C-alpha cells in the first residue's frame, strides 16, 4: 500500500515534468503585469448564487497595487477552455483573467507553469546525476571487488575519504571554483557531473562487496573455468547480482540530488536566475520576507520537493520489509 502511494507520487511528478508544455496553461516566462504576486485562481463549480456550473474561475481584481492585495471579482464567471491550442486547460479570457492554479510570482509569472517546467530541470538533473553516479560507482566497485589486492585498497580508501566529507560542502566547493556565470545547459552538465562524483563512492562500496562475495560462488568459478573473459564474467554474471542494490541506491541518491540542486540554486550557485528550476524558484521566493505571511503559494516548489522525496522514501519502505518472523517474541 505505502509502496503504491510512493510510486504514484513519483509517477505524477515525472509525468508532470514530461507533459509540462501541455499541462501548463502558459509559457514559463509569460508575464501578467497587473497580477504580481496574485493568489491562485481556484477552479469552482458552484457560483455566487449557489447553482452548479461547468468549472469556472473568478478573475482577480487588484485592491492595492502597493500591498499587492487582490479580491475575487464575483460579478462575472470566466469559463475554462479544455484541449485548446495544444494545452490541457486555459481560461476563456487569458489576457484579463488568466488561469493561475498556483498563483503568480513577483514578476507576474504563472507559478504552476514554472513548477511544471522547473520539474524538468530539477528532476532531470537528479535522474541524470543518479545514473552517472551509478555508472561511475558500479565501475569503480566492480574493478575493486573483482581484482582485489592493492588496486582494491587504493580505490576503497579514496572512496572512504570522499564519503566522510560533508557532501554538500564538496559539491559547493567544486561548483564554486568553476566559472560562476554559466548558461542553464552548462550548469546542468556541470552539476550532473559533480553530483555523480560525490554520489559514486556510496554505490562503489556496495557493488564492491557484492562482486567480491559473488566471485567466490560456484557459478562464477564455473564461468571462469569455461573460459569467460574478465569483462564477460563481470558484465554477464557478477554485475547483474547488484541490480537490487542499485535500485535501492538510486532511490536514496535521487532525493539527495534534488535537494542539492535546490540548495545550490538557493545560494546562487545553481541554475541562472531567470531559468525555472525548483531551487531558483525558492531562491526568488525567499528574497521577499512577505512570502511566508502573504504569498505562501510561492513556496510550492518546497511542497513539490517534499512530495517527490516522500514518494521515493515510501517506495523504499517496502523494499526492506520489517522482519515479521523475528519480531514475534515480543509483541
Amino acid at each position, binding site marked *: 500500500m505505502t509502496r503504491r502511494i510512493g510510486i504514484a507520487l513519483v509517477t505524477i511528478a515525472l509525468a508532470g515534468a514530461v507533459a509540462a508544455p501541455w499541462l501548463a496553461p502558459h509559457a514559463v516566462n509569460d508575464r501578467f503585469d497587473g497580477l504580481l504576486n496574485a493568489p491562485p485562481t481556484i477552479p469552482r463549480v458552484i457560483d455566487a448564487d449557489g447553482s452548479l456550473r461547468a468549472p469556472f474561475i473568478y478573475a482577480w481584481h487588484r485592491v492595492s497595487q502597493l500591498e499587492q492585495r487582490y479580491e475575487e471579482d464575483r460579478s462575472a464567471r470566466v469559463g475554462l477552455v479544455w484541449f485548446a491550442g495544444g494545452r490541457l486547460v486555459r481560461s476563456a479570457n487569458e489576457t484579463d483573467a488568466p488561469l493561475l492554479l498556483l498563483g503568480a510570482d513577483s514578476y507576474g509569472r504563472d507559478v504552476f507553469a514554472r513548477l511544471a517546467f522547473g520539474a524538468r530541470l530539477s528532476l532531470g538533473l537528479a535522474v541524470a546525476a543518479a545514473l552517472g553516479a551509478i555508472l561511475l560507482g558500479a565501475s569503480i566497485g566492480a574493478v575493486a571487488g573483482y581484482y582485489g589486492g592493492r588496486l582494491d*585498497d587504493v580505490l576503497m*580508501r579514496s572512496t572512504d*575519504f570522499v*564519503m*566522510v*566529507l*560533508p*557532501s*554538500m*560542502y564538496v559539491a*559547493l*566547493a*567544486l561548483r*564554486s*571554483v*568553476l*566559472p*560562476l556565470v554559466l548558461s542553464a545547459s552548462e550548469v546542468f552538465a556541470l552539476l550532473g557531473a559533480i553530483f555523480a562524483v560525490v554520489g559514486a563512492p556510496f554505490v562503489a562500496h556496495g557493488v564492491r562487496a557484492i562482486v567480491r562475495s559473488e566471485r567466490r560462488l560456484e557459478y562464477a568459478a564455473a564461468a571462469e573455468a569455461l573460459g569467460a573473459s574478465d569483462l564477460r564474467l563481470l558484465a554477464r554474471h557478477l554485475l547483474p547480482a547488484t541490480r537490487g542494490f542499485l535500485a535501492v541506491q538510486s532511490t536514496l541518491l535521487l*532525493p539527495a540530488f534534488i*535537494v542539492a540542486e*535546490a*540548495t545550490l540554486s*538557493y*545560494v*546562487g550557485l545553481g541554475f541562472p536566475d531567470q531559468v525555472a528550476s525548483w531551487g531558483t524558484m*525558492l531562491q526568488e521566493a*525567499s528574497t521577499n*520576507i512577505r512570502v*511566508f*505571511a502573504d504569498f*505562501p503559494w510561492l*513556496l510550492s516548489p*518546497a511542497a513539490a*520537493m*517534499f512530495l517527490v*522525496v*516522500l514518494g*521515493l*522514501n*515510501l517506495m523504499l*519502505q517496502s523494499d526492506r520489509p*520489517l*522482519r515479521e*518472523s*523475528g*519480531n*514475534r*517474541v*515480543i*509483541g
Partner: protein
Amino acid sequence: MTRYLARRLAFALFLVVAVSSASLILTRLAPGDFVTQSTNTQANRAEIDRERALLGLDKSIAAQYRDWLTAILRLDFGHSKQFDRPVRDIIPERAANTAILALTALILATGVGIPLGIVTGSRRGGALPHAIRAVSLVLLSMPPLLTSLLLVFVAARTGWFPIAGMRSPAVPPGGALLDLLHHLVLPAAAIGLPLAAMLERLQSQAMSEVVGEPFVLAAIARGVPHSRVVWRSALKAALRPVAAVYGLIVGTLLSGSFAVEVISAWPGLGTLMLGALRTRDIYLVAGCAGAGALFLAFGTLFSDVALAFVDPRASDAAAERGARA
C-alpha cells in the same frame, strides 16, 4: 588501543591538512581571483597588479602553497581580504556558532530519535509505534532545507520564534543566553528533526533484530519483565549498529547546517565559507575548510572511541584493518 588511537589521530591530521590544502589550491586554480571579484571596473592595470602582489597572487601556485604551509607552522593562517582581518581571528567565533547549532541539533536528534526507535522496534503492533513510524517517514522526507523553510513559515505566521539571526540587536530581558536559546530553537530543530527520524528508523531496525535473538527469548522465558528485557539486555546489543552511524553523522550535520545557516542567517562556518568562495578569498576558504575538517576529524574520532567502548570488537577490527594497509 594506544596504537589505534595514534592511528586515528594521524588520520585526523591528514584529513585537516588534505582538505584545507585542496581547497586552497582549487580556489587558486578557479577562474577569477579576489581582485577581479572585488575591485571596480575602472581599476587600471597597475592598480590591479599592485593589489595582486599584495595578496600573493603574483606568485606561482606552488610558491604560494609553500609560503602558506610554512606560515601555518607559525600559526599564521593568512589574511582575509574580505574582512581585512587575520583568518585566525575570524574562524573561531564562526566555528563556535556552527558547533553550538550542530551540537544542539545532535542532542535533540539523539534524545528524541533513539528512545522512540527503541519503542517502535520492540513492539510490533499498536497505535503508538505506527504513529511514530509515520511521523518519521514524513520527517525523513524533509531535509534541513525544507524543514527550515517550513519552520520559518510557521514562525513568521505565529511570531513565536525569531525567524533569522543568532542574537537580538539589543539584549532583551532574560539575558543573552535566553535570547540565544530563543534564536537557536528553529535552526536546531530544522537540522535535528530529520536526523531524529533517521536515528529512530535505524534504532528501530536494530532493536527489532535483537528482540528476535534467542537470548531475549530466554530472558522472557525466565520471567524477566518485558520493559526490563527491552531497556537493559536488548538495548545493549541494539546500540552497536546505531553507534557505528555516528561517525558519518558529523558530515550530515555539517551539510545540514549549511542549508539552515543560509536560510536562517545563522552566522556560522557555512555562510562564511560561501562568501569566501564567491569572493575568492583563498586563505579564508582554506581556513573554513580546515575548521570543517577539524570538526569532522574530531567527530569521527570521538564516535570511533565511543563505538570501541560499546563494542570492543570494533577497535580490534579497525586496528587490524589499519595494520593491513
